[in-house]
């Protein structure tokens, strides 16, 4: 009799809780909380213990441990291991901006520089090839990070910086700085950086001049040395009449 009563409670309990659990899971999915694919690939990468920990709700802890391992691998300049560990870290914690940003920085800045100065590779062409592959890996991390965190400005800014410093593609750099500036919580310099980069683009000087001039008119706080330099450059290039030019800084 008592077993029947327990069974009735369990069935009633299950019937009552299932819709609530299902609704909560739907909210989690809508907010991208359960976007982590804990599949066999990850199981092979992080080992059995790490996988069990990740399954038991300690995803962030496992990610941190792997992040610390990646830090150690970076100190030892084991670039292959750094790449592998950062892939695992970003898979486990796709909403942590720091992990995407650090992964991209290690690949596009550190590993690429190491590849370019690789004394074991005498052929320059192969060193350049390796360097470009690391740039691409850095870009790939940032693009994946943006897809996982489309409303946060940091990764757009980092991608803008990558295009500016590594690919020297000022049009794309300007585009990403402008995208970063549109997002909530963006730094005020993102908008200015977008205009600076535009000033390097052939054929878009007029647009850049107008944007930079708006900053100049916004007040003394905006009249930073780079802004003045770029404005002077554009005034020359666009042949702006002398009476419309900004005064020389003394």
């Amino acid at each position, binding site marked *: 009799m008592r077993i029947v009563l327990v069974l009735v*409670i369990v069935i009633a*309990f299950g019937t009552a809780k299932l819709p609530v*659990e299902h609704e*909560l899971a739907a909210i989690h999915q809508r907010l991208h909380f359960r976007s982590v694919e804990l599949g066999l690939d990850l199981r092979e990468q992080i080992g059995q213990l790490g996988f069990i920990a990740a399954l*038991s*709700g300690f995803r962030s*802890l496992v990610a941190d441990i792997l992040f610390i391992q990646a830090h150690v691998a970076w100190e030892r300049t084991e670039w292959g291991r750094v790449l592998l560990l950062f892939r695992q870290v970003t898979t486990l914690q796709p*909403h942590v901006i720091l992990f995407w940003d650090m992964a991209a920085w290690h690949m596009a800045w550190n590993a690429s520089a190491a590849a370019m100065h690789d004394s074991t590779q005498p052929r320059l062409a192969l060193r350049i090839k390796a360097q470009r592959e690391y740039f691409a890996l850095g870009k790939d991390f940032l693009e994946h990070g943006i897809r996982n965190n489309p409303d946060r400005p940091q990764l757009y800014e980092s991608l803008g910086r990558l295009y500016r410093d590594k690919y020297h593609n000022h049009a794309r750099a300007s585009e990403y700085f402008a995208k970063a500036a549109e997002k909530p919580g963006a*730094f005020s310099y993102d908008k200015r950086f977008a205009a600076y980069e535009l000033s390097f683009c052939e054929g878009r000087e007029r647009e850049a001049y107008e944007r930079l001039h708006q900053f100049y008119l916004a007040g003394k706080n905006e009249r930073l040395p780079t802004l003045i330099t770029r404005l002077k450059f554009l005034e020359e290039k666009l042949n702006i009449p002398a009476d419309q030019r900004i005064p020389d800084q003394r």
Partner: protein
Amino acid sequence: MTEKQHRAFSFRRISAITGNTLTELTRQKVFYVVLIFALVLIGNSIFMARLTFQQESQVLKDVSLGAMSIFTSLLAIISTARLIPQETEDRTIYTILAKPVTRLEYLCGKLAGVLALLALSTFVMSALFFLVLYLREQTVISETARQLAGMPPEQINEALRGIRASTFNPNLLAGIGIIYLKACLLASLTLFVSTFATTNIFTVVVMVFIYFIGHLQATARDYWLQEKSADWITHAFLAFVAFVFPDLQAFNLIDDIVAGVAVPLTLFAKTALLGGFYTAIYLLLACVVFYGKEL
């Protein structure tokens, strides 16, 4: 005492059992061992945080909240598992139940004692966590202010605002609340298991399995609700997992709170409601089994 004066359910009797249970639990060495391990881990997170130089509090928060989650769950299982077997072995349960105390009051009092212990340990861990976080924030602020010396005040303020915003987040408190609720539901479930278990080792082992199954319950439920081609045995097994076990993944909001994702208040409220519901139902099941137990 006349029969008319005796109440079937008395909060005074429950509070007396709660007080005794709490005193008894705080006298156990296991409580201090678990708590000290948690505090050491939370305190150490400040050193791990030095490995990052952009979002300084990321690792600190991950490690501290992870430690809180592990140790409150562990404490909930270990402390509850030994309650009934220990009292049966010591024969104190017979003395209590020989008095005009119902078995429902007895279980409610025992569970409330464990929940009070969990609240106490969560409070101590949270206090240390916020202290460590505050110290880390002050260090980063002073380092940043020193590095940015000479820059326009607007830019310095912007950088400092960024550090403060990334350190303290009101969602952290709600997240700690959810960790506590998860521990409460585990305590209630452990109490249920211990009503039919003969030893506390058996209860702990069963609870460890339930803990893992609970984290996979959502996957089983989704598969059960969506999969049409599976054979009836698989279907029945998945339905059993979905019906009986709690969805512990629903309580893992901390990973995303630390990542800086905005968590709506309604989600916290619904999760808290679900936690309360689980706790109450497992207590009810424990009562049903406990009433049938020959003592």
